[in-house]
């Protein structure tokens, strides 16, 4: 039985704005799923609809096998970690964590056990009697998580929980959250606009755009086999080039004629390849899928050097290449080969 199942969810706000369209999402128990997409794509709206703060305009939501489509937040077996943390400022750390169980009338002994256990798990025993504003951002984040977990919810909903932390702390806290999730085994739905966060943390990533789900898959799948131009572009870096299908995997592109291992589907609009998928070859090499160009720009990145290469076609933007080891200088002529199995086809338009 799925932890959470949303079917055909759409959301139209009072002002007539349609923020969600046809959302289908099934989350298995213990799974960590991220909702990834640019700002304004409807992630928070979806999360709040799942939590019960918004009524879905159409569709049904089941949590733990029970239909909760019409239930208010307090009647759903979910707990939310807010972007702002939303800690009660005049309650201590311990009182904040104990708030939910206390409201629910959990027996005192049980409440104490939960509190002590959670304080230990989020490593805040030394701060139990402090007010939230005496804590660092990372500590406040952990209080918010502990407060949500104290409800023993079936599903924990996170809304960009790391966006108020600085970059370094963010990486640490995201590892803590993931470790805690594995230890306790709660089901998590996690909203972020940061693709590296999504790839690093998730069992599965749900990529959203304009209120719709573009693609759902494991991080590796999303990265290696993007299905739409938007996903390819949003996750990592991608070169997207329009093409004409010549049949049998042969395509005509502004970069020249190429052969792909797998022929394009009927609705494909671009070929897509990752900057690190190329191999530099001798200028004179005559083999298939070799593209020639001039290095316009070069940025050393440590592990690799990023090249921006201008190819024959003027309308086409610069192609991005990642080259390990010695890289050609600016202005140099280069030739590079794309492996036939590294050429993928994606559908949809570029935004």
């Amino acid at each position: 039985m799925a932890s959470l199942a949303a079917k055909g969810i759409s959301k139209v706000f009072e002002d007539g704005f349609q923020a969600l369209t046809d959302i289908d999402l099934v989350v298995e128990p213990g799974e960590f799923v991220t909702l990834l997409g640019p700002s304004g794509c409807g992630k928070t709206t979806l999360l709040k609809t799942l939590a019960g703060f918004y009524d879905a305009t159409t569709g049904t939501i089941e949590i733990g096998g029970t239909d909760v489509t019409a239930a208010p937040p307090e009647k759903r077996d979910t707990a939310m970690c807010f972007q702002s943390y939303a800690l009660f400022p005049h309650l201590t750390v311990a009182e904040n964590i104990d708030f939910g169980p206390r409201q629910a009338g959990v027996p005192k002994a049980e409440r104490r056990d939960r509190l002590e256990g959670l304080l230990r798990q989020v490593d805040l025993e030394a701060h139990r009697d402090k007010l939230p504003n005496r804590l660092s951002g990372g500590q406040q984040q952990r209080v918010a998580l502990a407060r949500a977990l104290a409800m023993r919810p079936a599903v924990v909903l996170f809304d960009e929980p790391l966006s108020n932390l600085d970059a370094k702390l963010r990486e640490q806290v995201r590892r803590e959250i993931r470790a805690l999730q594995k230890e306790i085994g709660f089901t998590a739905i996690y909203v972020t606009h940061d693709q590296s966060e999504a790839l690093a943390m998730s069992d599965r990533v749900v990529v959203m755009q304009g209120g719709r789900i573009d693609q759902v898959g494991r991080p590796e799948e999303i990265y290696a086999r993007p299905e739409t131009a938007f996903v390819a572009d949003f996750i990592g870096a991608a070169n997207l080039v329009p093409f004409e299908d010549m049949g049998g995997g042969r395509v005509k592109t502004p970069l020249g004629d190429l052969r792909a291992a797998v022929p394009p589907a009927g609705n494909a609009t671009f070929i897509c390849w990752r900057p690190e998928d190329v191999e530099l070859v001798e200028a004179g090499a005559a083999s298939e899928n070799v593209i020639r160009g001039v290095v316009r720009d070069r940025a050393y990145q440590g592990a690799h050097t990023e090249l921006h290469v201008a190819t024959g076609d003027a309308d086409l933007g610069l192609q991005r290449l990642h080259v390990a080891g010695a890289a050609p200088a600016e202005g140099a002529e280069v030739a590079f080969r794309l492996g036939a199995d590294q050429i993928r086809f994606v559908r949809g338009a570029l935004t």
Partner: protein
Amino acid sequence: MVSLSDTAPVASRRPRRPAFRRFTISNVLIAILLLVCVIWLVVPFGMAVLWSLLDPSVRWEYPDVLPPALSFARWIEVWNTTSLPMALRNSYILAPTVAVTTLILASPTAYAFARYDFPGKGAAQVLTLLPLVIPGFVLAIFFSALIFSLGIYSRFLSILLAHSVLFLPYAIRLMTVAFSNVRLDLVDAARDLGASPWARFRVAYWPALAPGILASLIIVFIQSIEEFAVAFVVGAPNFTTIPSILYSYLGYNFVRPNAAVVSLVLVIPNVLLMLGLERLLKSANPAQTGVKG
């Protein structure tokens, strides 16, 4: 005064700092502010105290800097010969009632101003400030006519109504700010954690509202205690308040020491309340002190 204690440790930590650094704009402004405070508050207040304690047997005239003899005789005289005890009772029943009534009347409007956007909101907000620009006597004269034609003959009720209208702008302003300080994420969090409506109010609304409620109560209370025009026009002669007695000392039977006594009776509780208000506001909201992480 805060600035004085602030600058002291800085000066002692850096003894070789050149003296002209003390003449920063803010220091000069604070010095001017202190001076204004002294001229406008301390001097008149001190004079009132001295005048009220002037012994009836002596006169205080030029060139005496201080009164020649002091006693509580004026206080006793005023207490025994005027209706001050009655006026005190009236004022201190009226003002708290006005304060509470105004708060109750202001809250729904303030909530709407803070929470909702609606067409004409700007105009509505200006409209609620209107009572501030109407002179008290103008309001008093027409209000009394209105009240009698409505068949309300209770002086207390009439003044209560008039004061509530008069001081509504303060309460609406303060409560609008208070309601917009309520953090919606806290309301959502409390709900998500299964809080009952009462628990939600206590944990998400009350901490943000409390300072505004207190400020509104105290400010309206003080305004009502000190208001003369309406209280006099509508209330006199049956319903006396403290300012009515004070004003009766102006004009032909002007007795400065007695006026000083009544002034102090009027002002001292207000000053204490204001000081208490400041303390309450400081301690009311832990979220506004301390560091953000």
